[in-house]
C-alpha cells in the first residue's frame, strides 16, 4: 500500500472526526479544514521521513491537530465581550430555552485561550481523562485541571448573567 493510499484511508476513516474536533477548536469551518489539512500533511511528511507508522493513527493525528492549533493561533485581544444574550427568552425548561443556553455556551467558549479551549474540547467533546489530556498537551494532569478550572471560570459569568436576568424577570 502506498503512503498516499494510507493518507486517503486516514481521511476516509478519521477525517470527519478530526474535522469536528478542529471545528470545536476554531469555530470556523474553513480554519478547521486548514488545520486538519496541515496537520495531516505534517504527519504524513514526518512518517514518510522516519518510515515509522503510529499504532493509533487517530490519536496521533488528533495530537497533531491540537498542537497545530495551539502553535498557530495567536491570542486575540479584544475589548468587546461577546455577550450573546438572547433578547426574548422562552419559558425555562423548554426546548428553545435549552437551545438558547447552548448558543450562549458556544459563544462563551470563544472567549477562552487556546490551551483552555483545547482542554475543554478534549475533556467534554472527546471525553478524555485529565491524564490523557496532559499526555497529549505535554503537561501534568494538575495543569490540565487548572486550565479547565480557569476556562470554566471565564465562561460562568458570561452565562450566569443571563440566569440572573431570568431570576429578576
Amino acid at each position, binding site marked *: 500500500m502506498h503512503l498516499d493510499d494510507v493518507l486517503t484511508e486516514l481521511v476516509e476513516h478519521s477525517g470527519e472526526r478530526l474535522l*469536528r474536533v478542529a471545528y470545536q477548536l476554531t469555530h470556523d469551518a474553513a480554519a478547521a*479544514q486548514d488545520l486538519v489539512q496541515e496537520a495531516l500533511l505534517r504527519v504524513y511528511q514526518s512518517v514518510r521521513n522516519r518510515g515509522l507508522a503510529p499504532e493509533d493513527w487517530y490519536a496521533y493525528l488528533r495530537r497533531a491537530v491540537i498542537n497545530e492549533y495551539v502553535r498557530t493561533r495567536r491570542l486575540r485581544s479584544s475589548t468587546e465581550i461577546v455577550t450573546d444574550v438572547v433578547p426574548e427568552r422562552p419559558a425555562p425548561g423548554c426546548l428553545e430555552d435549552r437551545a438558547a443556553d447552548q448558543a450562549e455556551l458556544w459563544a462563551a*467558549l470563544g472567549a477562552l485561550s487556546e490551551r483552555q479551549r483545547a482542554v475543554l474540547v478534549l475533556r467534554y467533546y472527546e471525553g478524555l481523562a485529565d491524564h490523557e489530556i496532559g499526555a497529549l498537551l505535554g503537561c501534568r494532569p494538575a495543569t490540565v485541571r487548572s486550565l479547565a478550572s480557569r476556562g470554566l471560570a471565564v465562561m460562568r459569568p458570561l452565562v450566569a448573567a443571563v440566569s440572573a436576568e431570568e431570576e429578576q424577570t
Partner: protein
Amino acid sequence: MSQFEDDISRAMAGHDDEAPRAADLLRALEHASPPRHRPGWYVPFTVAAAVAAVVAGSVWAGGLLGSHKPVRTSGGAIPVQRLLSCPASYAHQAPWVPAKPAGIDGGSRLVPRDTPSSALICAYRGSNTARQQAGWALSGQRSLAGGLASLAGQLTWQPHRPRQPIPCTLMGGPQTNYLIGLAYPGGARIWVAATDEPNECVGASNGEFTSSGVIGPAVSKAFASGRWPGRTPVSCNRSYQDTGRLGQGAAMVPAGSTSVTICAPKARTVTTSYQALVSALNRLPTRPSTHGCSGTPGPSGAYEIFFSYPEGPPVLVSILIGCHPAIGNGDLQATSASSVMPVVRQLLNAR
C-alpha cells in the same frame, strides 16, 4: 460532572453538523500531498512530465496574455508553479488579470467555493500617484503554504461591484497590485487581481466578475506570511472592517447569517432570536445605493449592524437617524428606518 459541564458537552455536540466534510478535505489533499515515491522508470518519466507541464503552462499563459512574458519561479510549492507563473509586468491599470478563468465559471463569483490545491501571489509595487499606472514590474512572488480553505471562504463571498459608481477618497501613497493565481484539482485555473492602496477603492476582479470587496490588505498579509490570514471577528472597536458580501445587492441581509453585532453607544452581539431584525430589514422597500445621504431636521443617531456568516465577510447595514435615506448596506438603500428601529432597540435593551 456538574450540570454546567453537561451543558458544555451538549453545546459542543450541537454544533457537530457545522464542521466541514471529509470529502472536501480529501479533494484539497489530493493536490496538496507530496508526490509518491516510485522506483525505476517512473522517476525520469515524472521529471519529463514536470518539464512538459512547465512548458505547457507557459505556453497556455503566454497564449492568453499576448505580450506578457512569463517569469519562472523558484522555491516554494511545486504544483502551482507548474501551472501558473507570474507575468513579468502588470500590463494594464488595476484591476487586470493576465488570463480569463480556465475550466471555471468565473462570471458568478470571484473564485469558486472549492478549496484550491495551490495558490501563487505575484506582487507589483508602485504608487497611485505615478504617471504610469500600467506596466509595473514584478517585484515579488510567493506560493502560499497554508490557509487555502480560508482564502476560498473569504474570496468566494466577495460582493459584486454595483453598477453605480462608488465615491472614493483621493489620498496619494504606495500601491501594490497583486495577482493571485489559483489552481484546482482537475486543472482548472483562475487569476484574481487585488490591490492594496490607501483609498481601498480599487476593486478585485477575475476578468469576468468584478467585486467591490477590499481584499488588498489580506493579500498583503498573506504575501508577508505565506499563509492566507484567518478571519478577524467583527468588532465595534475597529474603524476598518472587511465588509460586503455576495447577495447584498439583492437583499439587505443575504440569507445564512449566524450572528448579529449591533454597534451603537451600547454594543452587543447575539447569535439567536434576531430573525425579526433580518425580516424587518429585508421587508424594506429598497433601491440601488447612491452612497450618500442628506441631513434632515430632528433627532440623530448612528447604528452599525454587522451580520456575520459561517464563512466570508460580514454584511454591514448602517442606520443614520436624521439622514435621508436612513439605511444602507453599500449596495441597497432604504428611505426610512422607522419600522426597523423598534426591533433594534428591543435587541439593545434586552439585558
